[in-house]
């Protein structure tokens, strides 16, 4: 087990080096020099020269890369040209919002996806089965932002049940020590705020969770169909175990293996989808932040944000791989 973890951690090294190289050269491929990009509209020849000397942009590329790695390792991504704040500080505010949204979306897709797929497999070929296949097909075919707009139209604009924008009521003046609003509200036992925050999460989470929901439903269905025909399930039935026990202890437990891998793989999709969902709901997370950065040509934010999200993605996949190896001993030796 330890060997597997070490090997997996070592594999991380080339990926991180490659990622840093990619982002480093990406910034240099952007229109305008890095100095221009970072300085933005304030750029003048004198400023550019000062900036280039200060950040060593007149030095050879490999020296520059090394310096870039050194600052990046310290999670110093520079200053946003739009807000003049440290990118790292903005990430501290924005990232918790996206994490809350992504977790809520994942929770939604797991809570509905696994039962949906399970019962579809149990009634293989029946009406419920076809219905679940149809729903999951629509789920992967509908663009996240269109579903978000639809949900907003029906539940916020038409019915007025839920708020349509933001993360919290605009008049709220509650302090947020951790920036995880749900956690903050629970710590301070502020139940009114908790309710408000959760209400703001519902629609974005459903929109963002639609694709994982569709995929989890499909995989669960396929996995349950597979496992159902295994010898050990037949044996369990033959020895007279109650059907529910067979389902719980033999079918579902083994079907969970492929499902858990898929759940991990969805992280990337969630991050991509967050950019679109957050834009529709004006949700102040990483996604809407990056979108603004594109419009403001705020390259410090883009560079830092993309690198940060990619890092998160790589780390989440690492955790998923390792936990998968813990659940499924067979994988360690292959």
């Amino acid at each position: 087990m330890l060997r597997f973890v070490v090997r997996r951690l070592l594999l991380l090294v080339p990926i991180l080096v490659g990622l840093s190289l990619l982002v480093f050269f990406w910034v240099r491929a952007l229109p305008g020099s890095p100095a221009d990009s970072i300085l933005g509209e304030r750029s003048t020849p004198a400023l550019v020269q000062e900036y280039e000397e200060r950040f060593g942009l007149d030095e050879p590329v490999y020296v520059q890369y090394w310096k870039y790695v050194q600052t990046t390792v310290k999670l110093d991504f520079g200053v946003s040209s739009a807000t003049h704040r440290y990118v790292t500080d903005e990430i501290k505010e924005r990232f918790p919002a996206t994490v809350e949204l992504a977790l809520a979306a994942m929770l939604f897709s797991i809570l509905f996806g696994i039962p949906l797929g399970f019962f579809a497999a149990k009634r293989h070929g029946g009406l419920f089965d076809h219905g679940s296949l149809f729903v999951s097909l629509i789920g992967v075919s509908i663009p996240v932002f269109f579903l978000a707009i639809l949900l907003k139209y029906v539940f916020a604009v038409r019915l007025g049940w839920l708020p349509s924008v933001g993360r919290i009521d605009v008049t709220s003046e509650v302090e947020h020590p951790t920036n995880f609003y749900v956690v903050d509200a629970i710590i301070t036992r502020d139940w009114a705020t908790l309710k408000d925050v959760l209400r703001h999460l519902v629609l974005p989470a459903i929109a963002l969770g639609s694709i994982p929901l569709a995929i989890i439903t499909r995989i669960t269905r396929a996995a349950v169909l597979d496992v159902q025909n295994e010898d050990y399930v037949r044996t369990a039935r033959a020895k007279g175990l109650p059907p529910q026990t067979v389902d719980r202890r033999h079918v579902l437990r083994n079907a969970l293996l492929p499902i858990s891998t898929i759940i991990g793989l969805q992280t990337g999709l969630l991050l991509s989808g967050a950019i679109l969902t957050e834009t529709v709901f004006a949700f102040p997370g990483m996604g809407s932040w990056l979108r603004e950065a594109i419009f403001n040509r705020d390259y410090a934010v883009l560079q830092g944000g993309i690198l940060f999200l990619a890092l998160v993605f790589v780390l989440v996949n690492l955790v998923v791989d390792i936990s998968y190896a813990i659940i499924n001993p067979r994988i360690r030796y292959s």
Partner: protein
Amino acid sequence: MSVAELEAVEVQREAPSGLWRDAFYRLIRNPGAIVGFIFVLVFVIAAIFAPLIATHDPVEQNLLLIANGCCPGPSADHWFGVDLLGRDLFSRIVYGARVSLLIGVVSVAIGFSIGLVLGAIAGYVGGIVDSVIMRLMDVMLAIPGLLLAIGIVAALGPGLKEVMIAVGLANVPIFARLLRGSILAQREADFVLAARAVGIRRPTILFAHILPNSISPVIVQGTLAMATAIIDVAGLGFLGIGLQDPDETPEWGSMLTEVNEYLQTAPFLALIPGTAIVISVLGFNLIGDGLREALDPKLRGR
């Protein structure tokens, strides 16, 4: 032609045509795939014959139409109503199919061909070449697809060609991985050993023997990638970073950008372009699923 070569050719011709013919019959008996074909056909016809189908000029603004508030809904003259600038929505949807199809096909072709070459080399050559290529693919996969596309568009600037490259490059690692995997599985197969034994050169073995046998999962992936490409293009358009001038080139995703504030008064402005995206994407997904089942009968009903 030696006897060995003659037989090699024969075997190669017989086996795939049988597989493909069977797959074809299975495909046309699949109702889902048929519906998919119809959706895609509508989409392709709209794209190709856009100038004939469109009832108005898609970029002509008619501000008189929206003088009494935004926006008049569907009518006899404007089947899908008019948009915020008084342009005919039906014509814009029809022309939008053109942009989506063009970008979809070209970007999948880019992703497919680069991924094919990289995956084939990695899988067949192996060793250090394999490691270098696949680590590079891992790095690309480490960046979520849309984010990667945004980064590429940011570097290249907005425009039709740039979006194609961005969406295409984001597809490369997926195809490369798929192909490498299936070539690795084929490399030790008996027919490869036989081809090597009769002295066929390595590139020929790769392109004439291994690739045709590894291609079916790639074709399925290609169809599904079309669906993803259409969604990605619409996503970029929606974020307003795809095309240089969304007013000049009607694009489905960008049609949804500004209508956010008009949901109360003119919901059809969002519903119609959105439905167009869903139908075309659904079409490719249905065909992709149908192909997967047709090419791998073990998956039936899964």
